[in-house]
């Protein structure tokens, strides 16, 4: 099972405050807050560009 060591093993500890992995409000480092802001702005831009008409343009043909 040496192969498994290449994976990061999940641990069941609750993330500490300022933990890089956390996404909970109040537990975020300034770096994470910045990253969240970038992500939010990106998503808003994607949705604005696509617009609601995207949904009608997305119709697919089913595959086998």
């Amino acid at each position: 099972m040496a192969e498994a060591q290449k994976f990061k093993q999940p641990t069941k500890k609750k993330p500490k405050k300022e933990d890089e992995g956390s996404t909970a409000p109040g537990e975020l480092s300034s770096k994470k807050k910045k990253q969240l802001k970038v992500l939010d702005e990106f998503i808003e831009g994607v949705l604005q560009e696509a617009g609601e008409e995207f949904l009608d343009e997305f119709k697919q043909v089913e595959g086998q």
Partner: protein
Amino acid sequence: MSIPKIVGIEQEYAIKIKGDENLSFFDASCTLVNAYARRLGLRNPKVNMLWDYGHETPYQDIRGDLFGKNTGQQIIGEKENRLINAGLPNGARLYTDHAHPEYSTPECLSARDAVACDKAGEIILREGLNLMKDILPFTSVTLYKNNTDQQGHSYGCHENYLMAAHAHEACLVSHPERALKTLIPFLVTRQIFAGSGKVGDSKRGNPGPPYQISQRADFMQNLFGLETMYARPLINTRREHHADPKRFRRLHLILGDANMCEFAGFLKLGSTQLVLQMLEDDFMDCDLTLKDPIKANKQISGNLGCVVELADGRKLTAVQIQQEFMAYAQKFRPTDPSSRVPDDDLILNCWSYVLDGLEQLKLSADMVIEDDPLLLSRRLDWVLKLWIMNRYREGQNCTWGHPLLTVLDLQYHNIDGKEGIFYRTQDQGFTEQLLTNDEIARFVHAAPDNTRAWFRGKCLEKFAEEMYLVNWEVVGFDQGDIYRMIPLLNPLKGTRGQYQEIFDQSRNARELIALLESGSMEQ
């Protein structure tokens, strides 16, 4: 006795075209397939390889002829065959399936390799899209790795698992109650970690839960059956094993979602490998038969915490049912130790972690994540997507009915590294990656070492100009007056360990075949 659980994924990609109203999905898909094949030298005029449909029998049923359909085999001309198909040197198949590109990974021994091969498929399709820009400079084509267009249509992320013929026959044909007691409850409930999440119902405007765990649950209507485009079954009963049917069978599952998160994909495939091996060894003595599996599949998708009714009257949550399977898996060791599922300890660790995390995950009635102490939003698609949705809802002060949430849902699955919402989220450090980039990149060009995919891939890499046909279970060479076929009927053989030396010594296919004949290629 259980056998190694070779696994492969067939991913159908949704396609969107902008800038050319006359370009059909079929034509765009074929352009992509051929652009990529050309890049690899597979459209060189000297390469005339066909994809061999001779072993495809989509209308034959494992339960017997009465269940099948008498519509004959798919027959297409050689020109169309070459237009839509590309067998690749990494052991995979890239092709046009009806009206979209499809990528079938090579056969993998481990869940980890299968996820890496699936991710390598995304890279290959992205490369195909880039190459298309030179061919169609004024047209924008985008691909989405998901399972529904939100307009009532669904397309699959099919899984295939190698099973021992006797166990497959016993569990799915002669005694399907064995599958009903164990396999089906496992498959119905594994969506709690394997689901990709979806806004609303199968079609926009239909009443239903505001957010679902599974993309496919709305579309599953039967337990067993042949269909893939309507009346979809949890277990597809196509008798098309792509291996020696006396020894091997293929379990073809069509109920799963396409995963963007590596962790979710790994756990989906790995836990299924373990459960199938326990089924083969008759290790699980439980009876978790669901009273109505199809209804339960939908109920769970709409509500993580719901209780579903078992045939014996018990009422359990999906987490509780999964805990039963995990408890068996923790005690299980296969009859043949050499058949042990690779990374089994890690699969169990991830499984246990996720079930604990799901027990502690708190969602409000309006599907706001109130507590996620084990950070499942970094690991499971449906939780990650829900977290992203809720951020947007909060920022825009909008309700679940807002149409842009459906757009967000679809854009999560855009495979473009810069435009896709999943990939941008990953880039910002909000997901847990299991695989290294090198690990994924390796499978763009090379097949896994430890299955027959390696042999197939090596033939395509070295001798494509001499090949006449290829499919999952055979490679054929055109030697002028005669075609020479090399059967690959055992998915566990044809590995690098067995044949690297022979390929190193062979300057052409004739020499390869001579060397194979001078030894023996045991099947």
